[in-house]
């Protein structure tokens, strides 16, 4: 039950994009085409899960016993960069079609703050491994949910007759604001 609460909270209530503002660059940059959004969110799910699965043990069993937890930012960013490269290699070997779908977005993820943000939040809040994994899963799914819904809205917005000054990013930000308001309303679930 506890794990379910964490999943719902990270998926809907503390949504990683709308409430924590992580991964916004890709949120506004990629979300104009449905195909690229789906590719990006798949890649983000894979990388967030893998990085959370690796950074937690590194922090708990390497950095913490050695008393060098202060270098966690450097350690994590290196792990994530290496992980992204490795994922790219594996995906390329295993499935050509998946590589074609994800290939362009994988290198971008190394500097996506959502990945580093989840890893850092996990070790900062000092939760057990299972909860950390569930939190990562919820965050990644929340990212995909919001970015796909937002892309659908933005495609409609492009066809709409918006005022000249609001065209492009400003109206996208205001739309995101309304979405965030709606997500705030979900806070009563738990």
């Amino acid at each position, binding site marked *: 039950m506890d794990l379910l609460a964490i999943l719902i909270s990270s998926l809907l209530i503390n949504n990683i994009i*709308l*409430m*924590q*503002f*992580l*991964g*916004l*660059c890709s949120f*506004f940059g990629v979300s104009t085409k449905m195909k690229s959004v789906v590719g990006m969110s798949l890649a983000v799910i894979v990388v967030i899960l893998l990085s959370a699965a690796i950074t937690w043990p590194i922090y708990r069993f390497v950095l913490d016993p050695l008393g060098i937890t*202060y*270098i*966690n*930012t*450097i350690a994590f*960013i*290196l792990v994530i*960069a290496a992980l992204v490269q490795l994922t790219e290699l594996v995906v390329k070997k295993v499935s050509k079609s998946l590589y074609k779908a994800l290939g362009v977005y994988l290198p971008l993820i*190394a*500097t*996506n*703050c959502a990945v*580093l*943000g989840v890893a*850092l*939040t996990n070790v*900062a809040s000092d939760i057990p491994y299972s909860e950390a994994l569930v939190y990562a899963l919820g965050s990644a799914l929340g990212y995909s949910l919001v970015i796909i819904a937002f892309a659908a809205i933005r495609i409609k917005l492009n066809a709409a007759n918006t005022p*000249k*000054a*609001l*065209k492009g*990013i*400003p*109206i*996208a*930000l*205001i739309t*995101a*604001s*309304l979405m*965030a*308001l709606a997500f*705030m309303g979900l806070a009563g679930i738990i």
Partner: protein
Amino acid sequence: MTEAKKPIAVPKKAVKKDDIVKVDLWSTFTKGIWKENSIFVMVLGMCPSLAVTSTLEAGLGMGILVFIILTISNLIISSIRKFVPSTVRIPSYVVIIATEVTALQMLVNAFASDLGETLGVYLALIVVNCIILGRAEAFASKNKVVPSILDGMGTSIGFALSLTIIGFVREFFGTGMIKLGYILPLPFQIELFGGFGLSKYSIGILTAPPGGFLIIGLLLAVFTAKANIKKAKEAEKEKAEKIKKALEIKAKLEAAKAAAAAKGVEA
């Protein structure tokens, strides 16, 4: 003839080049502040600009930290640009920036612990701020040390300025006052506009996440509208000038015609 002309042309060019270099240094510094403002014009670095601008002080604090990081990272990256192989340049930039951020994190926790607590995880996330890596890749890796430092300073001053503007709007309309000295380690603590009793008219949602998106969207729209009006005015001016020129030419032609006609009459 051509050989005689050349020596005269060379010193003239040299003088002009010197002027251009001086102007360039100044413009590398100033362009990042407003003309190529990272948030309002380039729309980069949105994560921190939304997350830490619920109060003016937190936004300003973030701006100051980014100023320190960006200036130093541009300095280091520009001075090592000649012997870092281009295949591993991005990882090496990231390591440099991460090291700086770690050092800064310790300093902030020691000397401004309230700021460190307010910024929380976003302090560590300066590492993946698009602006810092973007300036490293776009400017510092191709330019000399002094222009790179100036570019870093200009860009981060523009960033700090926009964070302060967003923070001001959100805190003022969200709480009805501006608190100073509560987060930053200032020698005083005041509440600007606190005595006006504006807090009962405040719009609390503006300090919450949706308010951040809304305020940045509206500010962006205002700046875009301003730029559009300026462009329209310039276009009108150009049009007016063109019409003026055309009229002048027409008048000249008519005058010439009239003169010709007069000559014809005389003849």
